């Protein structure tokens, strides 16, 4: 196998493997870019986004400051909740634990002075499903699968760099389209620079 041949195959097989991620990022970008449209469409249905699963007395000490993640984990464990999560203080009297999987989102609201816990489920929305996948990444979550997804996100951006590199190589080896290619490349960089300069 010659190098140009290898280069073409790498470009192709990489794309075929990462196709679902590529499609997901494209579709979800549309949901981000036109969020007002999707929001208005959903509001027209008149259905509540959150529904209460349960409300119960519950007690846990919440420190005034510091890392709240351990508190969030404890609230989840005590109440049979599972998934990736984030914990934040909604107000001086309220702590929220946001628990999310790709298909389902839940929030646990802990009211500190009332010592009460309210757990709500979010109605499935396809645009939220897409944007949730798009925004997911990083290595802050404890689970091995969550970290593996972070690795896959790295593979996707590395794949994109490889597409550029292998694509440029293929273009350079087509002498007849070099001039037009230069024009397209220069036009792209000029447009991008103009945006940076004037936005």
């Amino acid at each position, binding site marked *: 196998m010659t190098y140009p041949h290898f280069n073409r*195959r790498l470009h*192709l*097989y990489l*794309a*075929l*493997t*990462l*196709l*679902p*991620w*590529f*499609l997901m*990022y*494209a579709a979800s*970008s*549309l949901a*981000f*870019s*036109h*969020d*007002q449209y999707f929001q208005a469409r959903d509001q027209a249905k008149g259905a509540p986004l959150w529904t209460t699963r349960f409300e119960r007395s519950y007690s846990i000490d919440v420190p005034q400051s510091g890392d709240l993640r351990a508190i969030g984990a404890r609230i989840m464990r005590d109440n049979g909740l599972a998934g*990736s999560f984030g914990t934040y203080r909604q107000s001086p009297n309220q702590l929220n634990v946001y628990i999310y*999987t*790709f*298909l389902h989102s839940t929030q646990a609201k802990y009211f500190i002075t009332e010592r009460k816990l309210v757990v709500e489920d979010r109605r499935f929305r396809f645009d939220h499903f897409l944007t949730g*996948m798009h925004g997911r*990444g*990083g*290595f802050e979550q404890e689970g091995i*699968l*969550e970290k*593996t*997804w972070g690795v*896959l*996100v*790295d593979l*996707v*951006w590395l794949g*994109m*760099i490889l*597409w*550029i590199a292998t*694509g440029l190589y*293929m*273009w350079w080896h087509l002498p007849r*389209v070099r001039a*037009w*290619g230069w024009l*397209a*490349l220069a036009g*792209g*960089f000029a*447009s*991008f*620079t103009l*945006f*940076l*300069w*004037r*936005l």
Partner: protein
Amino acid sequence: MFSKVLRRIHMYLALFLTPWVLMYTASTFVMNHREWFRELYGGSTPSPVVEREMRYEASFPESASTKQMARQILASLDLDGAFNVSQRARDGAIVIQRLDPITPRRVTYDAAQAKLTIEKMPWESRAFLERMHRRRGYQQSYALDIAWASSVDFFIAAMTFWVLSGLWMWWELRATRAPGACFAVAGAVLFAFFVVAI
């Protein structure tokens, strides 16, 4: 002929959109390794620093909204462009976030004291990349912002086109059909597994 045209569009689109792809990949790297970058930079993104403070007396039309006031203030400072504005609860000051991708600024106008403060964000590449990654949508009325939002939509359309034209080109190469199908199925199975599992 159709195949050749498809190949050329696939390639020229990719060449034209190379800066967008580079920006989105670099920013994805930064956002996927936020903790690592926080350690590298020694903390979260820096706070804005005061660039200018001045006496400023503005007169606005009687029925002017906060948004109109903000636009007038920015224009008078030669800082016109995309912004968000809010009114501070404690003293009614107008706080304008000028959404410049290179140098975002915060402009605070305190009418009671006739004082205007301009603060700017110190340059930091990770923050710049994240700002660019997140910039989209048609909320701003400035022509260039609408053009940028359109460029994002164009990029999405190009991604879809790359997928479809790529599939067409793959199918034309008989020798790659079987191994290509294996890679495509492996990717789809892996993706589906994660959708269900996490």
